[in-house]
């Protein structure tokens, strides 16, 4: 009898009783915020400035400030959403595979995009920060800002940047690319979805890729490719180049 009562509390841990500790509210809030952001964006004709990711981030931040919930509580609670990012990035192989023929026919276009986009991405950020008097550590943390967070963190560490600062800069860059990509390419009168996607993927990794996928599958596939190749090349070249010249 006594052993039975000892075991019952364990069962309680598996039932609804402990839902309060579970990330339901944070995950739910994230989904609702994004859904609201998508709807609002649609009302305004999906204007690039009303990027659903950016809007949802602002909605959540306003909610957090208004309710006095701590940011850490939200960040811990929204972990299931964050976790989904891994499988979702793996799934980018599907649109990429569907566009294999187009990609094969565009080998040199992709090479040119990387040849231009990789150095311009690093030098434009480093140059602007240097001109405006940023500290050396901030400049180094900025250098890998265009590549996907997991790679950027490793590069930042190798070249002497601050890892946590780099993560923040990478996310900011992704959002900037997602918002500005469609506007800037329109200004440049570029309509080729291969070029739009490639440029956005190279400059703004996964968040830019998510936006490019909304344009069409060709743009999405080329963005995935730009993100992946720029990530791998930056990881190989950036520490090497810095070592050679400084």
């Amino acid at each position, binding site marked *: 009898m006594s052993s039975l009562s000892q075991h019952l509390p364990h069962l309680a841990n598996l039932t609804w009783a402990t839902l309060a500790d579970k990330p339901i509210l944070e995950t739910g809030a*994230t989904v609702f915020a994004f859904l609201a952001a998508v709807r609002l964006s649609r009302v305004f004709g999906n204007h690039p400035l009303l990027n659903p990711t950016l809007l949802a981030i602002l909605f959540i931040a306003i909610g957090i400030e208004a309710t006095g919930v701590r940011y850490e509580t939200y960040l811990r609670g929204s972990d299931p959403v964050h976790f989904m990012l891994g*499988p979702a990035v793996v799934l980018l192989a599907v649109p990429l595979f569907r566009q294999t023929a187009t990609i094969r026919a565009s080998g040199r276009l992709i090479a040119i995009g990387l040849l231009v986009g990789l150095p311009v991405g690093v030098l434009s950020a480093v140059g602007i920060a240097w001109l405006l008097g940023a500290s050396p550590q901030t400049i180094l943390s*900025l250098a890998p800002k265009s590549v*996907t967070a997991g790679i950027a963190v490793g590069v930042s560490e190798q070249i002497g940047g601050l890892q946590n600062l780099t993560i923040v800069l990478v996310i900011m860059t992704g*959002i900037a690319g997602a918002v500005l990509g469609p506007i800037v390419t329109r200004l440049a009168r570029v309509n080729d979805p*291969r*070029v739009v996607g490639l440029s956005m993927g190279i400059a703004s990794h996964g968040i830019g890729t998510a936006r490019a*996928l909304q344009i069409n599958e060709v743009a999405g596939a080329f963005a995935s490719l730009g993100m992946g190749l720029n990530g791998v090349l930056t990881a190989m070249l950036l520490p090497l180049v810095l070592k050679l010249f400084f």
Partner: protein
Amino acid sequence: MLEQIARVLFWLCIGEIASRSGLLPLPAPVTGLMLLYAELAIRGKIPEDLGVLADRILQFLGMLFVPAGVGVIAYLDLLKLEFVPILAAVIGGTAITIFITAVVANRFAAATSKADTDVAPEVEEAAGDVKS
């Protein structure tokens, strides 16, 4: 469908093992992407459910970055000392990168597609050089 979820998680796990063991200096999802692509290339086709899964999930890929973005807002205070150079470098640098990459790649694409239709493939490269 469960098979396809298992397939995705399998390659993600292999990616995780490769990155944790130091075999590959790449994040697990990037390795997983390459491995799934390799598998599809060998198969020669996409399992139907996998295509559906990818289309459904990737439709809201943008949502999956929301927690990370909120994290940035939480740390915005840390940037305040160098807020102007950082913001200018991030926004200006990203806009410049997309603009220059798009313009150069577009000129190349236009030049080569013209070369494809007008002249023999051998002179394609020369035409690209002239136009850009």
